[in-house]
């Protein structure tokens, strides 16, 4: 990946011709955790859906009579956009719900600010695959615990214990149907990443 900031030849000429640049962050969580709901609550556009096709699954299935074998799998991702300023656009990507599509998570995470992990308090264990992914890859993240519909609540500290999340990682109670609540998560993630960078400096 060529960074514009690195002032390589290609990057510089592109920069002169395209005045806007983009960054992205990820919104992760199990099925029904509210990823697309959150995107919709803060995005300036109706969430869009992009797809990638996985054809590698068919490799190794080399049976010419096996026409019943489906050879293409589609991974769908919902995303939204926030125009931060005249020269900066922020994209919010919901991670594919199916945890087996790790190849897509890798591309999504590449160059991302970080991730917001939405936890459904009724199914906290559905967070584990995403949690594991972010920790292994060193991708900064925060946790939002959904508390809509009067679902039985845990305190953030109880969630921290249940998910074994390090003390410095913010955990917020949230209702991602509410724009302000989603904004608070975006702010918390960005502040968290800034704080991490300062520690490293």
């Amino acid at each position: 990946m060529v960074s514009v900031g690195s002032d390589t030849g290609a990057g510089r000429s592109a920069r002169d011709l395209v005045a806007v640049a983009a960054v992205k962050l990820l919104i992760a969580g199990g099925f029904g955790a509210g990823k697309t709901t959150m995107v919709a609550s803060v995005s300036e556009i109706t969430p869009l859906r992009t797809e990638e096709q996985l054809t590698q699954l068919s490799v190794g299935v080399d049976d010419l009579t096996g026409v019943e074998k489906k050879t293409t799998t589609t991974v769908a991702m919902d995303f939204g956009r926030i125009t931060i300023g005249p020269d900066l656009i922020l994209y919010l990507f919901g991670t594919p719900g199916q945890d087996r599509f790790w190849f897509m998570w890798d591309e999504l995470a590449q160059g991302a600010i970080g991730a917001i992990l939405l936890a459904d308090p009724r199914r906290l264990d559905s967070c584990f695959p995403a949690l594991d992914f972010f920790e292994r890859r060193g991708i900064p993240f925060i946790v939002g615990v959904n508390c809509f519909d009067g679902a039985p609540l845990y305190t953030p500290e109880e969630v921290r214990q249940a998910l074994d999340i390090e003390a410095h990682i913010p955990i917020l109670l949230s209702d991602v149907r509410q724009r302000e609540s989603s904004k608070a998560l975006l702010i918390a993630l960005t502040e968290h990443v800034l704080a991490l960078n300062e520690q490293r400096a």
Partner: protein
Amino acid sequence: MEDDNTWFDEEAGPLVRPYAMTGGRTRTGQTELDMITLVVASRRRHARPGAMEPEYLNILSLCQNPTSVAEISANLNLPLGVVKVLLGDLIDQELVHFRTALTPDNEVLQAVLNGIRRL
């Protein structure tokens, strides 16, 4: 006689395989395109409509203003990989300019933070 394995509708996949549009190519030319690489149609060079496949013309009409690869994919209902190949062709012909995604350094993060607070 139909058996249980017959495909119907979406199960059968698209009637025209998307990668037919790319001549079977699954890789872009010289350009590394991310899903949030922004692309914009050139103001100086224009395609001759008759000389181009409609997919290229659709892409050009969608990126009159800076637009991400993912938005083009979503709006054309084409997989990201196909859009990247087609955009790579347009970039090679200098009909489209692109800008790679920013590295989220502290300056960018601060701008994002300020922008979200203003929402």
